[in-house]
C-alpha cells in the first residue's frame, strides 16, 4: 500500500494552514474566473502565476493554489453557460445546450445543483485516476531514453489538434511556429546566439509565461470588441438558491458514465477538457435520448458533459506530471509554472519530490469538497458577480497581467514582448490557428531539441537511433494513426463545405 502511505504524507502537506487557505482562495478565484465569460482557465492560471511568484510561495504551495484555480475554473465555466447561455470557458459549451433551457424554465437552481454534483463526480474520478495511474505511468516512463522522449514530443505536437476537426495543417503549423520561437536565444549546447538580431534582451529567449499571458490574455482583450460586443441579454432569475437534495442526483448515472469517458479523453494526448465534454454529451445522447428531450433541458444533458470536462481536466494532469508532456492548454501553462520554479516534471518527479506531487494530489481531493460547498450553497455569490460590468472587469484583468509580467524581471521590455505576443495571438486567432500548440512548442522546444541532440550524440550522428527503440516505434505508430484520423475527419468536413 505504497500509494496510500504516499497519499497520507500528501495530506500532511496539504492541510498546513497556509496551503489550506491557498486552496480555498484558489477554488474561489477559479470558480469566478471560470464563470466570467472571456476569462478561461488558461488566462486565469497564466495571469496568476506571476502573482504566485510575487507572494514568494514555496513550489508546493504555488502548485496547490494554481491547481485549485484550475479545478475551480472547470466548475465555474458552467455557471454562465446555464445563467447567460454564454459558456464561461470553452469546455462549458456543451453545458449550454441543456443548461440554459432548464434555467429558462425556472429551474436554474436545479441545473446548477446537478452540474455541481456532476463536476464533483467527474473531478473525483479523475483525481482517483491520478492517484493510482500516475505512479504506474511514472514507473514505466523511467525506461524512456532520449530517442523515446523525442518520439513522445513528436506525438504531442502531431496529436494536439486531436480529432477536433480543425484544419490539421494549421494546428501543425502552429506547433512549428512555437518550436521556432523556442529556439530564439542562446543555444545551451554551444552558446550560439540564435535569431536574436543582436538584441541582448533576447539572449534568454522568450519567457513562456510572458508569451502565454500575451497570447491568451492580451489577445482576448483585443478580440473582445469583435466577439462579445453586443451580448446584452441579462442573466435569468435564479429564484430559489438551494435545490432539493433529490433533484441534484438526477442524472447521477450520466455523471458516472461521463466521468469515465472524460477521464480517458483527458489522459490521451492532445484531447483535453473540450473533447471530454463533447464525447460524454454525444455518448449520453446516443444511449439515452429516447424521447428527444436532449437539447431542451434534460438533466442528463447537463450531468454528462460537466462530469466529462472535469474528469478530462483532471486526467490531463497525468501526462503533464509523469512525462512532462502536457495534453492541454491549461496543463501547458502549469508546466510553465513548474519550469519557472525549477522543477522538472517527468518520471523522476515522483521519486525526488514526493511531497510536491502527493501534496498536490491531496489538495485536489480537498479542493473538490471545497468546490462542491462553494458551488451549491454559495452559488448565489457567483451569479451576482456575473453581472459586474465588463468595462470594470477587463481593465482590472489587463492591469493585473501587467503587474504580474512586470514583476518577473522589472523591465518594460517584457511588457512590450507581451503586447507583441498579444498581437501575434490575435492574428493567429483571426486565421483560425489554435494557440495551444504555439504555447506547447515554446515550452517544449528546448527539451525536444536537447533529447534529439542527446540521442544523436549517443549514436555519433546516426539518425537510425531514432527508430531503433521499440517504445519510440510504438509511439510513432500511434502518432501516424492519430494523424491519419484527424486528416481524414478534416477532409470529410471540407467536402460538403466547399460544395456549397
Amino acid at each position, binding site marked *: 500500500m505504497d500509494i496510500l502511505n504516499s497519499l497520507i504524507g500528501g495530506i500532511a502537506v496539504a492541510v498546513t494552514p497556509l496551503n489550506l487557505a491557498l486552496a480555498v482562495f484558489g477554488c474561489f478565484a477559479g470558480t469566478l474566473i471560470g464563470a466570467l465569460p472571456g476569462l478561461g482557465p488558461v488566462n486565469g492560471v497564466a495571469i496568476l502565476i506571476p502573482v504566485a511568484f510575487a507572494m514568494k510561495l514555496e513550489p508546493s504551495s504555488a502548485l496547490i493554489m494554481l491547481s485549485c484555480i484550475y479545478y475551480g475554473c472547470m466548475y465555474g465555466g458552467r455557471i454562465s453557460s446555464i445563467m447567460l447561455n454564454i459558456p464561461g470557458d470553452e469546455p462549458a459549451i456543451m453545458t449550454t445546450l441543456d443548461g440554459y433551457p432548464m434555467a429558462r424554465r425556472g429551474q436554474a437552481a436545479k441545473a446548477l445543483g446537478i452540474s455541481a454534483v456532476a463536476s464533483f463526480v467527474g473531478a473525483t474520478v479523475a483525481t482517483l485516476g491520478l492517484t493510482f495511474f500516475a505512479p504506474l505511468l511514472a514507473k514505466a516512463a523511467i525506461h524512456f531514453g532520449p530517442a523515446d522522449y523525442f518520439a513522445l514530443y513528436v506525438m504531442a505536437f502531431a496529436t494536439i489538434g486531436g480529432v477536433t476537426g480543425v484544419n490539421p495543417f494549421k494546428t501543425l*503549423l502552429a506547433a512549428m511556429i512555437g518550436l521556432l520561437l523556442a529556439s530564439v536565444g542562446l543555444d545551451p549546447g*554551444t552558446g550560439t546566439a*540564435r535569431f536574436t538580431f543582436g538584441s541582448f534582451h533576447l539572449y534568454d529567449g522568450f519567457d513562456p509565461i510572458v508569451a502565454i499571458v500575451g497570447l491568451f490574455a492580451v489577445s482576448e482583450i483585443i478580440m473582445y*470588441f469583435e466577439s462579445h460586443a453586443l451580448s446584452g441579454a441579462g442573466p435569468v432569475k435564479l429564484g430559489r438558491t438551494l435545490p432539493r437534495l433529490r433533484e441534484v442526483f438526477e442524472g447521477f448515472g450520466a455523471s458516472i458514465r461521463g466521468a469515465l469517458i472524460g477521464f480517458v479523453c483527458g489522459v490521451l494526448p492532445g484531447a483535453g477538457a473540450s473533447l471530454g465534454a463533447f464525447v460524454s454529451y454525444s455518448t449520453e445522447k446516443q444511449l439515452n435520448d429516447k424521447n428527444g428531450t436532449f437539447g431542451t433541458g434534460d438533466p442528463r444533458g447537463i450531468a454528462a458533459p460537466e462530469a466529462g470536462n472535469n474528469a478530462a481536466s483532471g486526467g490531463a494532469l497525468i501526462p503533464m506530471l509523469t512525462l512532462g508532456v502536457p495534453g492541454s492548454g491549461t496543463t501547458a501553462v502549469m508546466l510553465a509554472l513548474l519550469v519557472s520554479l525549477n522543477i522538472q516534471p517527468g518520471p523522476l518527479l515522483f521519486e525526488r519530490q514526493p511531497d510536491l506531487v502527493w501534496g498536490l494530489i491531496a489538495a485536489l481531493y480537498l479542493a473538490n469538497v471545497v468546490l462542491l460547498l462553494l458551488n451549491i450553497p454559495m452559488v448565489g455569490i457567483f451569479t451576482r458577480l456575473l453581472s459586474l460590468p465588463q468595462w470594470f472587469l477587463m481593465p482590472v484583468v489587463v*492591469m493585473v497581467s501587467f503587474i504580474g509580467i512586470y*514583476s518577473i524581471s*522589472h523591465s*518594460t521590455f517584457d511588457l512590450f514582448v507581451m*503586447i507583441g505576443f498579444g498581437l501575434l495571438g490575435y492574428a493567429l486567432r483571426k486565421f483560425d490557428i489554435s494557440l495551444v500548440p504555439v504555447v506547447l512548442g515554446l515550452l517544449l522546444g528546448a527539451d525536444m531539441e536537447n533529447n534529439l541532440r542527446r540521442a544523436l*550524440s549517443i549514436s555519433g550522428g546516426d539518425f537510425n537511433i531514432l527508430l531503433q527503440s521499440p517504445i519510440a516505434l510504438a509511439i510513432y505508430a500511434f502518432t501516424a494513426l492519430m494523424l491519419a484520423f484527424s486528416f481524414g475527419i478534416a477532409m470529410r468536413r471540407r467536402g460538403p463545405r466547399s460544395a456549397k
Partner: protein
Amino acid sequence: MIDRIAGAVIFMVSVSAVWVARDYKAGFGDPLGPALFPQMVAAAAALLSLGLILRPDPNPDAQPLPAFIRQAFTLAVLVGYVLLLEPLGFPLSTMLGTACLALLFGAEPKKAGVTGVAVGVSLYLIFDNLLGLPLPLAPATFG
C-alpha cells in the same frame, strides 16, 4: 484569401530562418549542432504554409469598422501605458490606463474616472504594500 497571405508570410519567415541559421556552428561531441533543429522546424513550417496557400479555408467575416477603431485605440493605450509606467510611476499611469480602457469598454466618463483612481490605488496597495512587490511609485523626475 486571407489564409494565402498568412501562408505566404509564414513561408517567407521560415525560409529566411533556414537561411539565417546556416551560420550556426556545431560544437565538439555534438553532431547535430545548433543549426539543424531550427532548420528542420523551419523547413516543416515552410512546407505546411505551402499547404495553407494551396488549400486555404474560407475567409472569416470581416469585423465592423467601429470594432477595429476600438481595437487600435486599445492597443495604443496598452503601449502608452508601458511607455509611461516608469516615467510616471505605477499609481498614476495605472489610473490613466484603467480609465482609458474602461472608456473603451463602454463605461460612462465619470465611472471610468472613478474606476481608474480606485484600481490604480488599490492595486498599488495590494501588490506593493501587502505582497511586497516593488512597483515604481513616484515620477522618475522626482528621484
